């Protein structure tokens, strides 16, 4: 579904991604883990078109999307739930969701948007309760739900999430990861970037480990969870053994 070859990207003179290759197949949850500043978010921003790729290829369902604007990429069925949620704070929950359905509105009609709205509100009952509330007044966890719901409104074939657990309390984080599992059960494909590597690997099928913009390791989640190097660097296990 998504295939990336030798991708290069960065900000200004700063090169963040160096010759990165990876892929995502339909129906998978794939996670990308790495330290702060390793280039995880940059990768998602590049795929979604917010950053222009400087080299390499991004193929989505066989089409090259590396040079497209973000709004075009959404129309092709690839949605991003951005880091820090980025809801339209001054608009109501319902308005947020309707705007997420813009793609459907353009492709089909308003009825398709309303259908999608029902589906998303069914998925997140809490949002139905808050329908008329301004998005900026929601709690962090609710905003994250809204951001995911808004992305789902476009009926994407691939949904990418950038650090959905950031700044949320453990209980809420648990809910978010349950949602991700449910999304896959409903046939969605998910590409997940997470600081919380352990939780991410637990729900994912496969994972990629990146370090300073380069791929250092990839494999099935169980394999990565068991890898001692990954445990030491990202899962926080094994310090006692190493330092004593």
């Amino acid at each position, binding site marked *: 579904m998504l295939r990336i070859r030798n991708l290069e990207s960065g900000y200004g003179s700063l090169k963040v991604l160096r010759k990165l290759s990876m892929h995502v197949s339909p129906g998978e949850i794939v996670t990308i883990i790495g330290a702060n500043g390793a280039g995880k978010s940059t990768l998602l921003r590049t795929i979604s078109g917010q950053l222009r790729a400087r080299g390499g290829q991004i193929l989505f369902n066989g089409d090259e999307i590396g040079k497209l604007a973000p*709004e075009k990429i959404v129309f092709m069925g690839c949605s991003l739930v951005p880091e820090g949620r980025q809801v339209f704070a001054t608009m109501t929950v319902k308005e947020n969701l*309707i*705007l997420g359905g*813009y*793609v459907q509105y353009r492709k089909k009609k308003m009825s398709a948007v309303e259908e999608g709205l029902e589906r998303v509100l069914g998925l997140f009952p809490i949002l139905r309760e808050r329908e008329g509330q301004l998005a900026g007044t929601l709690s962090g966890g609710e905003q994250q739900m809204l951001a995911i719901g*808004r992305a789902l409104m*476009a009926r994407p074939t691939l949904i990418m999430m950038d650090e959905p657990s950031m700044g949320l309390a453990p209980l809420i984080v648990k809910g978010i990861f349950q949602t991700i599992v449910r999304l896959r059960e409903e046939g969605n494909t998910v590409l997940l970037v997470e600081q919380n590597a352990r939780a991410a690997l637990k729900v994912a099928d496969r994972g990629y480990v990146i370090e300073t913009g380069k791929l250092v390791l990839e494999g099935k989640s169980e394999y990565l969870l068991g890898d001692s190097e990954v445990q030491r660097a990202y899962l926080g296990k094994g310090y006692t053994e190493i330092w004593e």
Partner: protein
Amino acid sequence: MDMELLLLYLVAGVTYGIIYAIVAIGFNIIYNTTGIINFAQGEFVMLGGMTAVTLNAFLPLPAAIVLAVILTMAVGALIEIIFIRWLVSPSVLRMIIITIGISIVVREAALHIWHEGVRALPYFTGNEITSVSLAGVRMSPQVLWVLGICSVMVVALNLFFHYTFLGRQMRACASNREAARLCGISAKNMVTLSFVLSAGIGALAGCVISPITYVQYDSGTGLAIKGFAVAILGGLGNSMGAVAAGLLLGVLESFSIMVMPTAYKDAIAISIMLGVLFVRPSGLFGSREAAKLKEF
């Protein structure tokens, strides 16, 4: 003090105030979608008035106004497409200078087309000496036209922004441009639309006010500055605040004539603006929190 005179000042203040508010709303529309203060905003008002006067020479008044508004909207679109659209994240300083440049060029072009003459559209109904009496105050019917049309504009804009998909798209861009793009909304088209819209309301305001104030190639500048003062007073980006602030400034200015020479009228408006900027940059009606978020 003569009660009738006071009311007269009040009506004059409200009339000017609502025009300032319309100009301020024009600022706000563009500011909200782009983060740019369009220093050429006053030129839209001037262009609307001037074009309508010219067209009125061979077209009936309503047709001339409609056509003038459409032409000004086209100019707004052109300005955005030629000068703004292709810039990649320009600095605020750069945008300030570009829009100032545009305002100068438009003004000078107007000077060469229409020369320095002062013009005006005919009164929409009646003439200079007709007056209607409302609640004991005698006023020109044109004042009612100004108040009526501007009020309709404010209400219509509000409905547009809150109840149409297009309006919501514009608000989404204003709220969070990147997130709007991630919803598939073309932020660039929204920016063009914001220029078209603010050119349109500016031009219409220019038409309705011209019988009272007259227009000249350089009448945009003064209005733009008042409009900006009002936008600041009302809280940048807050259109309802702009209406309140517009009326307030218009009335204050109108009464200031009683104690100060007319020559200092503008200076007073600007002093009020500076005072607000220094003490409460979020405006009288804007929330401080929101202003903090918008700091640039």
